[in-house]
Structures are given as structure tokens and as C-alpha cells.
């Protein structure tokens, strides 16, 4: 369902896939990444460089982690979709929200919205209130009328007003939970 682009509340941040890369690049300012020169050794923490054997092992571990992160079976951006799946979908494996609509790619796939369309995202409350709602004047409830405005409570406990949906085609179904 097409919804307006809103700064919605859900923002899925990358977790496991991001931290190893950040660890690699999280050198203090002015320090070469892994140059291995004498200056770097003297500036660095004792854990990282002064103990040559164990640290070199841990460095190689971090290198292998970085290599694994770019593998197709992993989820570099932590959005719940593997890199391979993202390549197939056309989404960015390094951006948890490829279309920038505030909902992560994995969440959009789960909720059957388009992770590449910023105007298509699941409803999570907080509906857009277009400025046109102030100009809509309800006339009645019959075909051809501008619908009378009303406000009802949604599944998030928020009041949703019909006229807030102006400038969109609205498909409304009344049903019962029988």
C-alpha cells in the first residue's frame, strides 16, 4: 500500500555486520590503520601492538572477519536480509534502509512493501497529515459527496482522521471479526 513518505519511528540499525568494520577503522585520529611502523607501535595501546605474537593473531582474525562480512551469505548492514538476497532484490547490502523511508529493508520485505520505493512502507502509526486536510469540506456520505470527516482509533491507539488521507485514493473496507 502506498503511504506518504514520513519520518517514521522505526529505524533498523546495522548490528553484527557493521561492528567488525568499525573496529577496523576505529583507530584514534592521526594513527595509521595497520601500518606497523615504529610510530604506530609507540602510540598504540599495549594490547594491540606491543605484544607481538598474540596481537598479530588477533589482527589476522579481524582481517578474516572483514572478508567474511563481504560474503554473500552474510548481512553486512544488519537489516535482516542477506547480502545475496539484497543483490537479488536490488537493494543496497550496505544500507539497512535502501530507499531512505525510515523502515529497514528486511522489515519492508516482511511487511510486503517495496524496499526500493520511499513512498511504499508499512503502516506503523503516525499517519501523515497532509496540508490539504485543512481545505477539505465534508458534504455527506453518498456517492459524489466529499465525505464527511471522521476520526477513529487505530491498532496503535492513535486517532486517524479520514481527511488526513486527502490527496490519496482511499480504499476503505468495513468488516467484523466473526
Amino acid at each position, binding site marked *: 500500500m502506498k503511504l506518504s513518505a514520513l519520518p517514521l519511528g522505526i529505524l533498523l540499525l546495522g548490528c553484527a555486520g557493521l561492528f567488525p568494520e568499525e573496529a577496523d577503522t576505529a583507530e584514534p585520529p592521526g594513527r595509521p590503520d595497520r601500518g606497523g611502523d615504529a610510530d604506530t607501535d609507540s602510540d598504540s595501546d599495549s594490547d594491540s601492538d606491543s605484544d607481538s605474537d598474540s596481537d598479530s593473531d588477533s589482527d589476522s582474525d579481524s582481517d578474516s572477519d572483514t572478508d567474511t562480512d563481504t560474503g554473500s551469505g552474510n548481512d553486512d548492514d544488519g537489516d535482516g536480509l542477506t547480502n545475496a538476497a539484497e543483490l537479488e532484490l536490488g537493494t543496497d547490502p550496505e544500507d539497512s534502509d535502501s530507499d531512505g523511508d525510515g523502515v529497514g529493508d528486511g522489515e519492508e520485505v516482511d511487511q510486503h512493501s517495496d524496499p526500493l520505493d520511499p513512498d511504499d512502507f508499512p503502516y506503523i502509526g503516525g499517519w501523515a497529515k497532509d496540508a490539504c486536510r485543512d481545505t477539505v469540506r465534508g458534504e455527506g*456520505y453518498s*456517492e459524489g459527496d466529499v465525505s464527511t470527516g471522521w476520526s*477513529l482509533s487505530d491498532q496503535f491507539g492513535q486517532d486517524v482522521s479520514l481527511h488526513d488521507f486527502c490527496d490519496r485514493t482511499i480504499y476503505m473496507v468495513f468488516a467484523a471479526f466473526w
Partner: protein
Amino acid sequence: MIETEAYTAPKQRDLERWADDYGLTIPVLADPNGTQLWSYAADMGGSVGLPFTVILDKGVVIDSIASGSQESALVRRF
């Protein structure tokens, strides 16, 4: 939603449950006692079938109203 399976007015938890059960990612609203439903159905001579469908255009003008099984024909038009 106008009524629960217990024939009571829906509460928020009923709406949540319905949305979860059917995987709905659209606004699910409570219309206790069908107040809005009966307003849209006023021209139908007191006979209403569910689902009851209303389609409105971008100016919030009521384009079509369909009761019960007429819904599928209405949807096909769009």
C-alpha cells in the same frame, strides 16, 4: 472493524490481534456499533452486507460504495 467475534465493540487489542492474524500493514480502525458504516449505507435501504467497501478519490470524494459481494467487482474496476 465494527464488531468482535463476541459481538462487542472492538478495542485496541482486538485491532492489534486482527492486524497480526491477517498480516495487515494498513490502518485498522475501530468503528464501534458501525456508526460510520451505517452513515455510508444510509442510501441502501437498511440492508448492508459485509465486507462493505467505500472508495474515495484524492479529493476525498466518494467514488463508489459496495455492499457485500459487490466488492470484488468494485475492486476489479480499479
